[in-house]
């Protein structure tokens, strides 16, 4: 028997070579910096080149530079800012309402089979039916004022929040519920400590859809008795066939949608720091 007892060697000046075992990475690997900008930059590039070379005809999609001019014109002469603000107000209030209601309903229906059987069916049916077609109902109930618009948007954004939160909740590992049961915590604590954080990834995905839905809903509701709003602006421009103004609206949608979506994803990355997944 040979026993060698090591005493740590005197900490020599560090040899900083770093040869590691290089394994083919199967996951997506590290995040690319500035990746956020690549998508929009690409879209803009394709659009510009297409327009400049004439592949994209201006009658079909105005060139970026014409859109810039139209944007300026809208800004100066047609209160674009006012349009944007009215729209944002509607969608933010509607979204907030929808998110809260959707999440509450999802928790109720996620945690109780009875709640589920009462809540789930109607929501599934609601979401199978075109919003445009049920607006007449809403008009009858809520008039054609701001109320109707906000409620419609709330209902539109409620759906993805409900479904994703419900799905996320139901996807929580059953072992954590077991743990909670043996610890003897109250139902409220269970919801706070296990259900909500566990369903958070689902909820956040739902948020991504809810945010875009609440913006897209504007196009529908602002056809009704609106005097301002991006949806209103697009509707008008469509009727007149003002391609460049439509595109101003679409670009605004794109920008808002993309930024809101990225904001949710960034938030998700922060609050889901506990996850060790392929997202990395």
């Amino acid at each position, binding site marked *: 028997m040979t026993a060698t007892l090591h005493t740590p060697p005197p900490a020599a000046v560090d040899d900083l070579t770093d040869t590691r075992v290089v394994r083919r990475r199967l996951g997506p690997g590290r995040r690319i910096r500035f990746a956020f900008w690549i998508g929009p930059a690409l879209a803009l590039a394709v659009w510009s080149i297409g327009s400049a070379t004439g592949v994209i005809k201006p009658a079909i999609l105005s060139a970026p530079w014409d859109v810039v001019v139209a944007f300026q014109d809208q800004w100066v002469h047609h209160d674009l800012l006012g349009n944007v603000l009215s729209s944002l107000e509607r969608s933010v209030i509607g979204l907030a309402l929808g998110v809260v209601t959707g999440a509450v309903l999802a928790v109720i229906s996620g945690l109780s089979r009875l709640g589920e059987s009462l809540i789930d069916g109607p929501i599934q049916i609601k979401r199978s039916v075109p919003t445009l077609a049920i607006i007449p109902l809403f008009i009858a109930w809520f008039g054609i004022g701001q109320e109707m618009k906000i409620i419609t948007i709330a209902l539109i954004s409620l759906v993805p929040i409900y479904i994703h939160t419900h799905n996320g909740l139901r996807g929580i590992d059953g*072992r*954590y519920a077991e743990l909670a049961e043996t610890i003897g*915590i109250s139902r409220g604590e269970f919801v706070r*400590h296990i259900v909500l954080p566990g369903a958070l990834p689902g909820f956040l995905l739902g948020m991504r859809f809810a945010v875009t839905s609440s913006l897209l809903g504007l196009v529908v509701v602002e056809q009704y008795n609106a005097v301002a709003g991006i949806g209103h602006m697009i509707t008008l421009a469509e009727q007149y066939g003002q391609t460049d103004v439509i595109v101003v609206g679409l670009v605004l949608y794109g920008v808002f949608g993309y930024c809101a979506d990225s904001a949710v994803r960034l938030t998700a990355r922060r609050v889901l720091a*506990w996850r060790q997944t392929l997202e990395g």
Partner: protein
Amino acid sequence: MATDAGRLTTTAEPAVRVRNLHRSFTKDGGVLNGLDLDIAPGEFVALIGRSGTGKSTLLRALAGLDRDVTGHGRIEVPDAVSVVFQDSRLLPWKRILDNVILGLRGADAAERGAKALAEVGLAGRERSWPYQLSGGEQQRASLARSLVREPRLLLADEPFGALDALTRIRMHALLRRLCETHRPAVLLVTHDVDEAIVLADRVILLDAGVVDTDVRVTLANRHRSDPGFAELRTLLLDRLGVTAA
């Protein structure tokens, strides 16, 4: 709770009473086949048995976590039960301290949690995420979570499996100290026969779904050097099927 008449313990009334317990996952064979078991209040029982004989199944039945498993039988347990699961089962979305004090009430919860963490050797790791702990550290965090609750029945499923000898000895001491203070009934699953003998008042061996062996440990000196120790050890290993040990 099934009945907790047994909770206001006269020593005659056991803390845990199991009668004719059957559990099976498949049609062709049961895991527990008419198991009977009593544990007195404050008694420390070690449960050993081959891998896959149903130790965890029994613990889960005592913890009330097997609603959907077929079977029958009678179970009575005290109200305040705490479980150390075989997997450490830390909530991945809560930092270690929050995991430990999950559901604890009172202003001093955080303080008690931090103390429990320090006792299992995890002082300073309060704000780590579970994935940042080594296997043994996770197991100790999970142990801390159970101990901080001062249950009347502690069900521990191999709580020391991933610990080295020294840490294990420290945890033994900690567990024994807590048991002396609060005197919960303990049912501890372990694969280490020595550990069973060192810690328990009674060692039971599960086989074929029933209690095969049930030995009371009455050693004066719980040390390998005690001749009774070796004798008991050989007996148990023998029943486990290890003859030439």
